[in-house]
């Protein structure tokens, strides 16, 4: 079996909810059922299960017990995969490796998250998580509550070094919203212009509320198989992948957030025998507007321009040279960590994007980051001919 035989052959998504409600296991069960149906397979066809969940927000996160909870019989592969926001791509890599080496034939990857709980908004839920021990305890005792201030510090530093401006953040947020308008699954579908962006309250300078992702309760499941005789009629092949884990230290006189990611993209492209000009769409991990800008530059996707210039020229928007985060991303679509860009890539490559469909999209770059840009992962997908 060759790598190109491994394909994403089933996709299941729950509704993405802004309201508290179901537990991760229940959401995972629904996504699993939808993915199996989409692939036209049953539990009995599955011999591998990979589960992923976010850290810290709730104790009952999805784990390997889902094998039993989800109704599976004996499996050949069962793991909880965890490298923060890069987890989803790591799951696909793990599944592909198991299939290529004959360990398993058909693997389901499930990610579920339910950070929204009764009585608290999303920001509040994250602000109250993190504990009082270790480095995080000291940071929280210094006012670093939730994840926004962490990325605000990163954003301020990046803007200081690169010359990027608040106008660039605005352009990224409004362009991403333009994509969300065509995505029925997006949780924010009202048009957004610069005036509306500037009316959004500051959370942590320079980040406004509309620079931040919208956490949801939801789940996505993907069926990965090397069996060409089963699955959705449009197979989405895994053509290449790459990872980069820059081990960073926080020291005076050095940067601790930047660099990393380009090699992951290079490796994914090389495995696929493609170059950046072959990419039809890019689905990047965008928990904050500034991250998309940074990744466009780090991944080398801006034709030598700054990310701000690239985005303001419309290159990432509808009709642009590199349509990016075509479902509205995590900013306006929904924040389900790495499943947000992966699911959108599958939808685009199947041609199921409806109003937001990028004409002729046959190749997609999916990006993942974890931690404070500590983990990078890239996945190259292509619609089977």
């Amino acid at each position: 079996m060759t790598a190109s035989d491994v394909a994403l052959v089933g996709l299941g998504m729950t509704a993405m909810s802004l309201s508290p409600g179901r537990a991760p296991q229940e959401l995972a069960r629904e996504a699993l059922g939808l993915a199996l149906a989409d692939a036209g397979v049953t539990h009995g066809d599955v011999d591998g299960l990979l589960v992923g969940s976010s850290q810290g927000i709730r104790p009952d996160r999805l784990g390997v017990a889902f094998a039993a909870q989800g109704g599976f019989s004996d499996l050949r592969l069962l793991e909880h995969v965890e490298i923060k926001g890069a987890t989803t791509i790591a799951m696909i890599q793990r599944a592909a490796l198991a299939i290529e080496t004959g360990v398993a034939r058909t693997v389901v990857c499930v990610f579920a998250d339910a950070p929204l709980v009764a009585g608290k908004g999303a920001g509040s839920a994250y602000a109250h998580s993190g504990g009082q021990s270790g480095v995080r305890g000291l940071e929280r005792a210094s006012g670093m509550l939730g994840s926004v201030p962490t990325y605000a510090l990163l954003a301020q530093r990046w803007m200081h070094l690169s010359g990027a401006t608040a106008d660039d953040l605005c352009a990224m947020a409004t362009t991403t919203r333009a994509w969300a308008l065509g995505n029925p699954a997006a949780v924010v579908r009202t048009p957004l212009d610069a005036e509306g962006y500037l009316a959004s309250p500051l959370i942590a300078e320079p980040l406004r509320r509309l620079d931040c992702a919208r956490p949801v309760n939801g789940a996505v499941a993907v069926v990965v198989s090397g069996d060409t005789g089963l699955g959705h009629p449009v197979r989405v092949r895994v053509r290449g992948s790459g990872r980069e884990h820059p081990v960073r230290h926080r020291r005076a006189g050095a940067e601790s957030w930047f660099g990393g990611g380009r090699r992951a993209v290079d490796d994914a492209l090389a495995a696929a025998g493609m170059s950046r000009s072959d990419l039809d769409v890019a689905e990047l991990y965008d928990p904050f507007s500034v991250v998309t800008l940074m990744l466009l530059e780090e991944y080398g996707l801006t034709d030598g321009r700054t990310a701000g210039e690239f985005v303001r020229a419309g290159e990432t928007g509808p009709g642009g040279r590199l349509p990016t985060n075509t479902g509205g991303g995590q900013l306006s679509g929904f924040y389900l960590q790495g499943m947000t860009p992966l699911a959108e890539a599958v939808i685009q490559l199947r041609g199921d994007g409806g109003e937001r469909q990028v004409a002729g999209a046959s190749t997609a770059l999916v990006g993942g980051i974890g931690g404070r840009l500590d983990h990078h992962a890239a996945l190259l997908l292509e619609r089977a001919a």
Partner: protein
Amino acid sequence: MTVLTADWLLSDTLAPQVEGDPLAPLYAGSDRGELVLPFCAACALPLDLDQQVCDGCGAAEITWRAVEPTGTVHSMTVMHRREPGLVVAAEPYPILDVELASGHRLIMTTRTHPSSLPRIGDPVAVAFRNLGGVAIPSADLDPAAPPTTEASS
């Protein structure tokens, strides 16, 4: 009578765990008014606060020692979101990422509500604020200013 000074910014419920915490030497030093940070015992490289093994020489022994309490601003944000129940300040507050003269980097807020804010690259002095009985390193932008809230017990 003991005079306790309430923190200007945060609820005491955010006071860090000290006993048994990996950062216990930092808190013990802060309690004495010293900024105490970790170094490799073998090659003296400044280490991350939770680092166990030196990335410079591979040694696993760590020395915590007092350093000069000065640095420059690596990055700075003003936090406008004030989480109810956790933040007691009525105004947006600063968070600084400081490059210390010792070679470390440390996240901190300010000792008191600041009258003005530094920019990236500006020098800062490090002092301490009291959060629920735990001394926390903080930027001292207004050295003459007393702690903002006082209560007696």
